[in-house]
């Protein structure tokens, strides 16, 4: 039995994989430091525990160093037969995930320390989730994608219910988990079908197979739809968004920030790879489907957001709508792949900075008000003008007001849609246009509370903002402004992305 297996295996074309350690350096650094965090925790080095948050932060930042060296090196690296690719896109995304992770660490450290939480395990969870995202950035293979997805998701389920004795937190975690697992299952079923059609798990092979002669087989269509559904869940696109508001509201706020930014971005990263490398040949399915998802996400997300009174929940729906904006370029992927890719990546990067800024303020404010209600922001401008201005910048950026980051994100989306020069593109552009107006209405509700209303309880004592939060705020707000004023900064990355499709073997 075993012998026959070995014999069988020997006949299989099994090449010893060439492992490019430079390419894997970020992951290796991250895993190493993650292990250190684990060890510190496991061996109950009590005095060491307070170093865990800084250690986590260092882990993120340290992992960026090899990214820089890779970027300087510039060459695209491909491993495992093309299943794992380190190119500029991957580098940019990894950097984004690591930086987001760093910011979330900053956000979480005081929050966790002051609340009823297990601390050190949390950072471990977060590190492994980030690791999943980092891996996701390089995945060009169904299996890698699946593993990366689970690697980033499973810790996230736990993090969402991290406040063990809080029913809401439990519920948030459970819902997230159930929906997540169900979505994964659907996605896997779709993947199995795609695998069945192409006989390979490599995206490039799948792409080649399904864009072939019999590419219109229903089985492929079904597979694509199911896979997109799976990641539609991840990016909280309507109608797969239902979990997001509940989870966001119930989960500890730093986790929400993490989910809303990093996790969602990871979903988009996966979608980018699947769609641009795998499904480009089946634009006839992807385009309309994405059109529907984008339009529905924007509209439904915005409309429901209009009626929210809780800031976190409002940001959740705003995130749904933002996902719609980010999905929009996918709707013209067949005619205008390059612009669409640029648009999505740009949007994701800018979205990360501005949304994190918004959450940072929410966390800072709730330190005082212990509430997530919009009304609790009343009079903020009066007693904490700095926070109010930061929140204003974040929200205005989300709304797409120049010269703050969001405008460029929206702009590239418009650009991609218009450049497609198709009816679908123009109509979706109009939907985006209308929705960006609606969106301001609810962002405006928060602005209104901060600037125009008085503090609800008349308490105008200043908010004590810890250093970590201040640095998180500074980082994100500065990035938001810089991205807006000098979109060229991102332009440089995205500019380099142009050749990515070819590099990835698309």
């Amino acid at each position, binding site marked *: 039995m075993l012998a026959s297996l070995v014999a069988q295996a020997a006949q299989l074309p099994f090449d010893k994989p060439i492992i490019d350690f430079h390419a894997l350096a970020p992951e290796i650094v991250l895993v190493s430091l993650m292990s250190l965090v684990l060890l510190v925790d496991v061996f109950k080095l009590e005095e060491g525990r307070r170093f865990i948050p800084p250690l986590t932060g260092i882990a993120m930042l340290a992992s960026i160093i090899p990214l820089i060296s890779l970027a300087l090196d510039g060459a695209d690296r491909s491993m495992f037969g093309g299943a794992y690719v380190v190119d500029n896109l991957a580098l940019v995304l990894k950097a984004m995930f690591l930086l987001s992770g760093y910011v979330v660490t900053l956000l979480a450290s005081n929050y966790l320390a002051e609340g009823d939480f297990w601390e050190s395990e949390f950072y471990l969870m977060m590190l492994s989730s980030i690791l999943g995202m980092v891996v996701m950035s390089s995945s060009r293979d169904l299996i890698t994608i699946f593993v990366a997805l689970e690697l980033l998701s499973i810790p996230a389920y736990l993090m969402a219910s991290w406040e063990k004795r809080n029913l*809401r937190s439990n519920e948030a975690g459970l819902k997230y988990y159930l929906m997540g697992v169900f979505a994964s299952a659907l996605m896997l079923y779709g993947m199995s079908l795609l695998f069945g059609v192409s006989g*390979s798990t490599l995206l490039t092979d799948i792409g080649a197979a399904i864009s072939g002669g019999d590419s219109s087989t229903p089985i492929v269509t079904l597979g694509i739809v199911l896979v997109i559904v799976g990641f539609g869940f991840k990016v909280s696109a309507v109608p797969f968004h239902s979990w997001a*508001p509940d989870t966001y509201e119930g989960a500890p706020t730093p986790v929400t920030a993490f989910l809303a930014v990093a996790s969602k971005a990871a979903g988009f990263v996966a979608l980018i790879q699947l769609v641009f490398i795998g499904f480009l040949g089946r634009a006839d399915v992807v385009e309309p489907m994405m059109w529907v998802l984008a339009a529905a996400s924007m509209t439904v997300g915005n409309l429901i957001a209009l009626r929210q009174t809780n800031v976190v929940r409002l940001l959740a729906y705003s995130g749904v709508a933002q996902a719609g904006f980010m999905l929009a370029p996918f709707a013209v992927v067949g005619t205008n792949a390059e612009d669409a890719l640029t648009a999505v990546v740009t949007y994701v990067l800018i979205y990360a900075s501005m949304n994190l800024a918004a959450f940072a303020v929410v966390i800072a404010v709730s330190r005082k008000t212990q509430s997530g209600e919009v009304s609790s922001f009343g009079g903020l401008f009066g007693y904490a003008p700095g926070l109010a201005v930061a929140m204003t910048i974040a929200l205005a950026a989300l709304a797409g007001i120049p010269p703050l980051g969001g405008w460029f994100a929206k702009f590239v989306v418009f650009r991609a849609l218009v450049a497609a020069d198709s009816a679908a593109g123009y109509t979706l552009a109009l939907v985006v246009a209308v929705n960006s107006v609606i969106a301001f209405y609810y962002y405006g509700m928060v602005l209104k509370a901060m600037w125009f209303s008085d503090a609800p309880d008349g308490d105008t004592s200043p908010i004590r903002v810890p250093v970590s939060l201040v640095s998180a705020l500074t980082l994100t707000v500065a990035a938001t402004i810089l991205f807006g004023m000098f979109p060229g900064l991102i332009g440089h990355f995205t500019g380099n992305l142009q050749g990515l499709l070819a590099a990835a073997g698309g």
Partner: protein
Amino acid sequence: MWLNQFLILGALLFCIGVYGVLARRNGVMVLMSIELILNAVNINLVAFGAFHATPAGQVFALFVIAVAAAEVGVGLALVLLIYRNRSSIDLESVDLLKG
């Protein structure tokens, strides 16, 4: 080739799983239904792998099994947590968060 039979089996399992996920109110049963879907996937993968004479299907299936184990572990933990806090694992009653 006996591909279609496997696929039909997989599809059936998938459907049963989906039904279970949507219809059972017991958290544990929902978890089990998800396992059914994953197993449907595994059957598909293995069948297709055999069909294409590639080990990738089996490898994929192995990964799915492993990950599913982890997932269910987390899932059970969450259900337990809920049970501990609410003394119930009726999913219908878990609706504090809505709107």
